[in-house]
């Protein structure tokens, strides 16, 4: 799920940036440092939407003359939850299940959580095919899955998901994006 949250961070700037464009550089550096990162609590920081408040710079006393700024900013975060339904793109298929990505989030759907009518097939590209050959989950296919478990680390989230439920499973054969 996506949230719009207000977060804080200390940004250190080198003296050569202490000029007219300092604030722009600061914001740029903030984006560069936080966008795309993941924290266990908030999930993935997708985008900084607004820089709220920048404290006065404090020159650090380690002899480098760099200044530290305390920055408050709004950002969009993506935090998965157990039970949540997400759309994802399949990245890898093997006989134990398949991996998919929902943006930055890695998901694994094990063969126990793939509907019984789908069988693993490695004759060509690895894939799961339904008995009637109509549905084929292979790399680059889009799937809709429900998250059943998560492993949350300090800077990464990994999810176990299922397609064994109504309205879950293949939603696109991978010709286009989601």
């Amino acid at each position, binding site marked *: *799920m*996506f*949230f*719009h*949250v*207000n977060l804080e961070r200390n940004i250190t700037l080198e003296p050569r940036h202490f000029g007219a464009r300092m604030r722009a550089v600061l914001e740029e550096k903030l984006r560069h440092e936080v966008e795309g990162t993941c924290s*266990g*609590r*908030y999930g993935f920081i997708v985008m900084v939407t607004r820089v709220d408040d920048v404290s006065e710079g404090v020159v650090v006393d380690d002899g480098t003359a760099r200044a530290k700024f305390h920055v408050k900013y709004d950002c969009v975060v993506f*935090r998965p*939850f*157990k*039970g*949540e*339904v997400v759309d994802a793109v399949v990245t*890898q298929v*093997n*006989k*134990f*299940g398949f*991996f998919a990505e929902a943006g930055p989030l890695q998901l*694994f759907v*094990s063969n*126990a*959580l793939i509907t019984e009518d789908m069988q693993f097939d*490695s004759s060509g590209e*690895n894939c799961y095919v339904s008995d009637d050959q109509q549905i084929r989950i292979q790399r680059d296919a889009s799937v809709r899955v429900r*998250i*059943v*478990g*998560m*492993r*949350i680390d300090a800077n990464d989230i*990994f999810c*176990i998901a*299922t397609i*064994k*439920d109504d309205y879950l499973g293949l939603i696109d054969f991978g010709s286009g994006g989601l």
Partner: protein
Amino acid sequence: MPASASGSDDDVESSDDELASALEAELFANDDAEVKDVAKANAGDGDSETKRAREGGALPRVVRRKAFRVDDARGRGDEGTCAHPAFMFEICVVCGERKRDDGGGSKGEMRSGSGEEALRGHFTTSMRYIHEGLTLSNAELEKAKREEKERVLKDGKLTLILDLDHTLLNSAQFKELTQEQHDLLHQCIAQEANGLAERERPMLYCLRHMGFFTKLRPHVFEFLEEVSQICQPYVYTMGDKAYAKEMVKLIDPEGKIFHGRVISNNDSTSSHVKDLDIVLGGETSAVIVDDTERVWPANHGNLIRLDRYHFFPSSAASFQQKGQSVMERSMVDEGELGSMGARAVLLDVLAVIQSAHRSYFKHASIEEPDVRTLLVKPDRIDLPLSGVKFVMSGVTPLSDRNPERHPLRLLASTLGAEFVSSIERDGDSVTHVIARSSGTDKVKWAKKTGGRVLIVEPSWLVACAQANTRVSESLYPIET
């Protein structure tokens, strides 16, 4: 979309941030039963929740929600218990519960869950080569092996495990070679590139980023091509993962042969020996090709032990075979003219595999054959060389302590021929002497029998295997 958060394993301490506390209430509600009031949780995004948390002050009312428990139990064997067949990054792939790891659990985030009993006495095997972080319970591994074996056999294939170093190729580090050797090798590479026909791949490589020279064994592409038709091949090496990956890229540039079935040192369950335990396949239908016997203590019967391939002098020296490398023999590779009887070993091995494959599937519908007996003592009468009793002379090196795993010995036995160890004791029953050159005692003895005992060159065996019949011995006389 319902905000059906039911907890997580994160263990971040409380925060002064209002939103964070609201989120946290959402995130850290107890996994099993207690979640926030559904109506409230259902409503919406972070902002409205923040507001609600502000207004409400305290945490919202806690209710039991049965519906989610049912959801949650999906995929479990019985209500509430999961056998945890496999783990991905330490969480069960079926129920999403965290792996119970005594002592290794991080920061007390392991809560007493319903799966705990099921996990007691639960042994798992790491299957890193299939995917980073994957571990299987032993029951699941057995099941996967059985299923994979059946699937592979149904395709008419055996499982084949190949070693890399000294078997399919030979590598040497830059620092092990002298400057003259460096120059010579670069010259060879340039020469080879010039002489290469279209679609032909070079055999000698200089891998600067790894600091290696690598020479592929003669006929390796041919071997892999043929063998992948009748086997599901794996690479199993003692080298590390990066090296294995690089080498597989050389021998299988399109990735069509191994499909990621590459087991390196990091993936093996033991650092000193190799074992079929993590290979998906059965022992009765697996063939191993390796140059070192002692690394397969448990699977001796599946092994085809070929001669080590030494291209670089440093490689030969490390095995006390100084002067035996191709570079030291003025670049005459095995199987080429002037190689002093060094055979194109991979082609011999290919013949063994083809022959074993043929006899395996000939009777596979009636009984379940075992490759291990087919390699050594097929005990069948319909094989091309049934009735042949042979001695070998100068084929396997005298220093070889276990000549019975030599490809040519195995080739003869898969074809139905019977090995006789000494001419003194059983000389009367011997029908063939397989020899490389004419000077040996056994050859002289055979000549004296007046044509009763036939003398043939080892290539005769390969020809018989290819034709699947007893080829005329007179076509393969030994060099005199």
